[in-house]
C-alpha cells in the first residue's frame, strides 16, 4: 500500500504559509519522499487568510486537488482559528499543530471541543519565538520546525540544511536565524508529543 501523507497549512498572507509547505516539500524530497506543494491564493494581500498544501508519498504524486482530509493541519496564525475552520475534514489519529499562545488543552477547549479524541492538538507560541529571534512575526520556519518535531517525518538535520539553503541568498545572518528558530521549535515540540 502506497503511503500518502497530506498536510494543510493555514495562516495569513505575509507569514510564509506558502513557503512553509514549499520548504517541507524540498526537505521531504531529501528524505526520500516524492513531494508536491501548492498554494491556494486568495486576494494575494498581506493579511488575508491563506491556505497551502503539501503531499508526501513513496510514489510520484498525481493528485493536484485541494486537501479535504488532511493527516496534519499546521496553523501559522492564532487568529485564523475560528474565522477559518482549520480542523475541517481532519483524519482520525490526525494532528493539529498550531501557533497559539496558550497550552493545547485550552485551544482544544476553546475551539476544538467537538473534535474526535484520537486527534492530537499541539500548540507553540511561534509568534513570540519569531519576534525574539527574527524580530518579525513571520512564523513559517518555526512552524516547519514544529511540524518536523511533532511528526518526526523529517530529520532535524535535513530540515536545518534545507532552511539554510532556502534563506542563504537573502544573507547568511537571516539563514542562521531561521535555522535557530527551526531547531528551537523542533525541540520544544519534540518534548510535547
Amino acid at each position, binding site marked *: 500500500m502506497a503511503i500518502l501523507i497530506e498536510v494543510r497549512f493555514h495562516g495569513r498572507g505575509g507569514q510564509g504559509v506558502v513557503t512553509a509547505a514549499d520548504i517541507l*516539500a*524540498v526537505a521531504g*524530497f531529501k528524505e526520500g519522499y516524492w*513531494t*508536491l*506543494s*501548492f*498554494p491556494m491564493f486568495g486576494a494575494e494581500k498581506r493579511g488575508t487568510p491563506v491556505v497551502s498544501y503539501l503531499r508526501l508519498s513513496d510514489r510520484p504524486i*498525481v493528485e*493536484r486537488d485541494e486537501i479535504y482530509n488532511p493527516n496534519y493541519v499546521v496553523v501559522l496564525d492564532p487568529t485564523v482559528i475560528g474565522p477559518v475552520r482549520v480542523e475541517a475534514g481532519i483524519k482520525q489519529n490526525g494532528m493539529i499543530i498550531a501557533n497559539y499562545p496558550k497550552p493545547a488543552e485550552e485551544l482544544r477547549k476553546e475551539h476544538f471541543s467537538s473534535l474526535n479524541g484520537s486527534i492530537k492538538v499541539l500548540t507553540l507560541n511561534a509568534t513570540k519565538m519569531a519576534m525574539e529571534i527574527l524580530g518579525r512575526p513571520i512564523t513559517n520556519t518555526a512552524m516547519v520546525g514544529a511540524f518536523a518535531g511533532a511528526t518526526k517525518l523529517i530529520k532535524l538535520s535535513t530540515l536545518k540544511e534545507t532552511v539554510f539553503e532556502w534563506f542563504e541568498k537573502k544573507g547568511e545572518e537571516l539563514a542562521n536565524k531561521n535555522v535557530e528558530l527551526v531547531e528551537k521549535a523542533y525541540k520544544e515540540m519534540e518534548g510535547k508529543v
Partner: protein
Amino acid sequence: MVRKVVRGFYAVAYAVKLCRPSVICAYPITPQTEIVENLAAMYANGELENCQYITAESEFGAASILVGASATGARTFTATCSQGLILMSEVLWNAAGMRLPIVMVIANRSLSAPLSIWNDHQDSMAMRDACIIQVYVENNQEAHDMIPQAYKIAENKEVMLPFMVCMDGYKLTHAYEPVDLLEQGMVDSFLPPYNPPIKLTTKDPLTFGCYAPPHCYMEFRVVMQRAMMRAKKVMEEVFKEWAELTGRNWGGLIATDYMDDAETAVVAMGSVVGLVREVVEEMRKDGKKVGLVKIRSFRPFPTEELRKVMKDVENIVVFERAVSFGHEGPVAIDLKSALFGHCNAKVYSFAVGLGGRDIPRDLIRKCINNAIEGKVDEGFHFEGVKEFEEVII
C-alpha cells in the same frame, strides 16, 4: 540529469535557457509572471548568452517585438495568459500567417468578467483557430520537457508555426515538485540552432505577411492548414526522439491508459489528467471497463488517433475546462466532429473547474459513473456548481 524539487515556473524558465533563445520579451501577468522573472534574473546574472531580454509596455507590444525578432531569424520566447493572451491575439494571428515559430508558455488562467486570476483553459481555447500549435501538459516534468520539443517542432521547415505550451496556472506554475532537470549538452544535441529559410536583414529588406487580395488569399490559408497537418507527423517523430533520448515517453498527440478493452473512454487535458488516471485505475479495480485518453496536442487535433482508440467504445466522458458559449465545451465539439461516422458512442461532456474551482476526486468519479449508468443526458453539463439565484443586483 539532476532531480530537484522546483516550482513549475522555474522548470520551464530553466528549459527555455537551455534552448539558447536570442530574444525574450514579455509583459507580466499572474500566474505567468514568475516564468519571465526567472528568465530576467538569469539574463541579469549573465547566464543567457547571446540573448536579449526586452521588457515591453504590454502583451501586444511583447508579441509585436517577437514577430520582428523572429523574422530576423532569432529564436524567441514569451509567456502570458488570460487577458494578456487575448491582448496578444491580433499579433499572434499575424505571427502564424507570417509562419514565425515563436514559442510561448501559457500559464492557463480564466478570462474576465468577472475578474478571476485562477486556472481554466478559456484563454488558450480562445486562440484555437489561430493556426498556433497547442500542447497541454500534465505536470512540471512534461512542461520542462516540452520546451525543447516545442522549438524543434515549431522550427521544422515543414511546420514553421508558433507553438503554445499550455500549463495550468497555479496548479502547475506554483507547485513545487521533483523535476529531472535537463543538461545543456543533451539539449544541444537534440535541438540544432535556429536557421530559418528566410531571414529579414537591413541589407535584404522583405515584407512579411504581405497584402493578399481575393485571388490569392485562400491559397495562403490552404498552405497554413497543410503546415498544421504536416505538424502531426513531425510531432510524433520529435516526441519519439525525445522518449529515446531521455527515457521519458509522454506519448504521441494523445496518450492512453486501459483503452484496449475499454467500454467508456474518459478524455481530459492538463493538470487534472493525473487524478483522472487514478480514478480510472480505481474503477478498473472495481471491474468497470474504463480507459483514459489524454489529449496532448489540441492543435493540430488528433483526429485519426481518436478515431482509432474510440472505435469500439460505448460512452465518452469529456472533462472540459472551458466553454464555447452558446454551444458546449470545445473539446467535445472537436471530438464529436472527429468521430462523426466513425463511432456510435454517447458523448457526455462536463465543464469542471472553471475559474479555479477545485476538481476533487469524488467529482470526477461522479461524472464518470453518472455517464456509465445513464443518470445524465448525453451532451453538455456544468459540474460542481453551487445553488444560486440570478438577480439584477
